């Protein structure tokens, strides 16, 4: 157990750890040169699930901060929506996590996509504040 006296204590020292899903198996269709593959939820989930949590040596997937069911993508309309769930309601890292997800998606998806990242409703005390600061930081980053 990590106790006090070692710098700022961890907010959530004993998180519940979820199982990591394995690698996505390659299908015969994906290996065919001619047939196109649409971008689906699992593909987006694969992009964000290995992002490391700022506090623990665990990934967002292992902490259940991101789940595949909360990822919605529409390839034809070029939209992506991701809901993430901070591990505890007072998590101060929520802004950082939201920003990491958004940046990863911006860097990994074609430019035509509109990316929307927000906190799962009802899971954080200041979700609106987090949302606006995420948007603001992203705008700053894009301007550079």
């Amino acid at each position, binding site marked *: 157990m990590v106790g006090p006296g070692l710098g700022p204590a961890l907010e959530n020292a004993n998180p519940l750890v979820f199982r990591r899903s394995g690698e996505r198996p390659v299908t015969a269709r994906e290996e065919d*040169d001619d047939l*196109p593959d649409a*971008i689906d939820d699992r593909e987006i989930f694969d992009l964000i699930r290995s992002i490391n949590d700022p506090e623990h040596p665990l990934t967002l997937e292992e902490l259940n901060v991101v789940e595949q069911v909360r990822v919605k993508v529409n390839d034809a309309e070029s939209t992506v929506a991701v809901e993430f769930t901070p591990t505890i309601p007072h998590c101060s890292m929520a802004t950082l996590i939201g920003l990491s997800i958004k940046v990863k998606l911006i860097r990994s998806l074609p*430019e035509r996509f509109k990316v929307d990242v927000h906190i799962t409703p009802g899971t954080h005390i200041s979700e609106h504040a987090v949302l606006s600061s995420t948007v603001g930081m992203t705008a700053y980053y894009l301007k550079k």
Partner: protein
Amino acid sequence: MRTREEELKSLGTDFTFGFIQVMDGEKDPRNLLVAFQIVRDLVLKGYALGPFVEELFEVTSCYFPIDFTPPPNDPHGIQREDLIVSLRAVLASTPQFAEFLLPLLIEKMDSELQSAKLDAVQTLSACCAIYGPKELQAFLPSLWASLRREVFQTASEKLEAECLGALTALAACLSHAVLHADTHDLLDAFLSSVLKDCRHHLCEPDMKLVWPSAKLLQAAASASLRAYHHIAGSVLPLLLEQYNQHPQGCNLGPVLAPLQSSQRRTILEMLLGFLELPQKWGHEEGDETVLLDVRGPLCSVVSSALTDPSVQLQVVGVRVLTVLGTLPGLLVASDLDLAVDHLTRLVLHEEDPQSSMAAMEASGTLAPAHPGAFTDRMVRALAQELQTERADEGTRHQRCLQALAAVSTHPSIVRETVPVLLQHLRDLQRGSEPGDTGKMASLCRSLHRMAVQSQHDPESCSFYHRAVVPCLLGLALQAALQEDALLAPGKALLEEEALTSMVPIISAASTHLSPELAVQSAALMVPLFLDGDVSFLPQNSFPCSFQPFQDGLCLAAQRRLVILLMAFICSLPRNVPIPQQDRLLRELLALSCACDCPFAATAAAKCFAGLVNKHPEGAQLDEVLQLALNRLEPGLAEGPHRTQALGLLLWVTKALVLRYHPLSSHLTDKVLALLGDTELGPAAAEGLGLLLGDAPDVLHRGCHADVRLMYRQRFFTDNVPRLVQGFHAAHSDVKANYLKGLSHVLNHLPKPVLVTELPTLLPLLLEALSCLDGGVQLSTLRCLQPLLLEAPRALSPHGDTLVTKFLSLTDSPTMAVRIAALRCIHALTSLPTPGLLPYKARVIRALAKPLDDKKRLVRKEAVVARGEWFLLGSPGR
């Protein structure tokens, strides 16, 4: 101390005291290492410590736990690990330190620093090796409390593993105590306290602390046989009772059932952990008393697991069954029969392939221990299943075949299963329809597996060879000697695929033969092919004679069977004499050059090459090679059979290159010269890949071929300069052939050699990137990627060219080329960063397009590459 031991010892305790005073307050790591060594010698070599034991301990233990970071650019290279190990050796050197050391260790285990805890636990393990129960007695409760706390709170896997190891060491130490009639048995007392604290967790309904408790109990039990009896005797009945308290999943409905199954699975896995422990100590009489007591409940638990609908539970049940079956004397005949029936059922009727495979593997492991039970029940059931005609044959037949192969791990079982498979082959052959090649293929796979499993037992090996090889040959001949063989029913066996899949079987059955049997077999095989002597085959009445080496249009089917000869004769050990070898070589030579059918010609060429490779040095070999050359020259120059001649050339060259024969360079020159030929150039380029690659059927070490060390490097050194020269002198139409040949050669070289040759080859490789041939592009990219990772400095001057070419190749119509190009772009980031930063923006912009590629696999590579380029130049990368 080394040279004047006697004199120093005579100084007595003064020396010890003096040294303590000198060592006190030492800070320099180099001196500390020496000091620790001296203290160790003081103790181990029996210097008089007198009343100064505690002081000696104090002066060394003040450094514990070691907290040392070597300064950067430390010229002495002393690492923290060195100091830790050295100090540990001191502290654990004598039981006299015990009364001071153990409290210190307990205190450090309570500290907050992970490294201190780890160090303390590892030192404890080291101490237990030399301490006795007397020293540990007073501290056992606190030690146990600390170890238990650490394992229950599992901060890190390493710490948990070390704590469990320390617990085992503790228990082992206590186990070695000599018991007197009236002394208190420390081990019993200790284990009782362990059980008291851990047992009840195993019964908890929500199973939170189940795994840590189980691990602690298993660690304590693995210390010694006595400890095992004590703990297992108490825990096993409890676990079995727990299992039965969670009722079977199928009665509970969809929500609760999976939960109960997973709880039962956890219990069963814990049981498995306990059952696997006795394997450490080997077997002695009276060992299994603790297991024999619970045999009945154990068997019923296993049965219930094997019949549960949950697949995971079945798989764990199979594992438990395997362990129980391999413990001698545990299962009685009736239990065994039941077990085999369960396994048979799982193999045949269980839907999920996972349990089926697990059951097959378990059968393979258990069969050597109980061959009778398996032969009587499982093999019989499988054989019957194979014979019954069913509408949905597919999977079940395949499983039968796989299972028959898996269970053949004992000579007596092999004797039963081989005839079953051969009979099935005959049935397939008789009633064969198109589309039977799939069944033929799975049958051949099973036969191959059995061949490989039989290789190591001489009895099985000779039985298998005698049973299978003549049978296969007989069936093939029957099919080939019919009228209009290639159109008749039964021709499935003559298909190239079927014949090719028979090759590994015959090969595996021949590589490990005993010398006498090998000679016997060769004496039968060669006359069969040369003279049509079919006397040794079963059912040897054929409509016409077997003459594969004669000319004649109607003999096309017979000629294909030469591949079976190749499979046998090229797998024999080198010292087996081949009868009529000369004549055989001549016939093979003629067939390989003149035959219209490419399959037969290649088979003959391979057979010829295989024999030439193993032929002893001398006049005969030279004669044969001269004959071959005489045939090749006109054959290559012009005529209808140029491709066959090239094939022969390639295989003979390979045979000679492998054994470093002097003629190999002459032949290699011919191959390289052909790269410029318009008709044969591309085939010659592919041929270079054949020369250096690994063929699965002939000319490899597994079939006793003469393969010299480092033949690839030698080939490279001798021939690449000529390749490069040829490239520069060549006409532009054929330059692609040279590049393809070069990339094949490079792909088979070990990396260190490649890196040293890079400066000369680089211009060629860069030019190859612009070549329009997709194959050349792909092999060049695949060649460049590891080079970028391992020799970045050599490639960094060419950064601009590489970036441009790679980016343009990400547009290629072929998916594989796009993926390889993206991987190379990713690998580019290993080049020194200052050289890459000018390209960063351009690459990131260009990589946006592959992110929208229509193929997912391409997009994946693009994401990885682009992400890495974004991070170029950022701190912490």
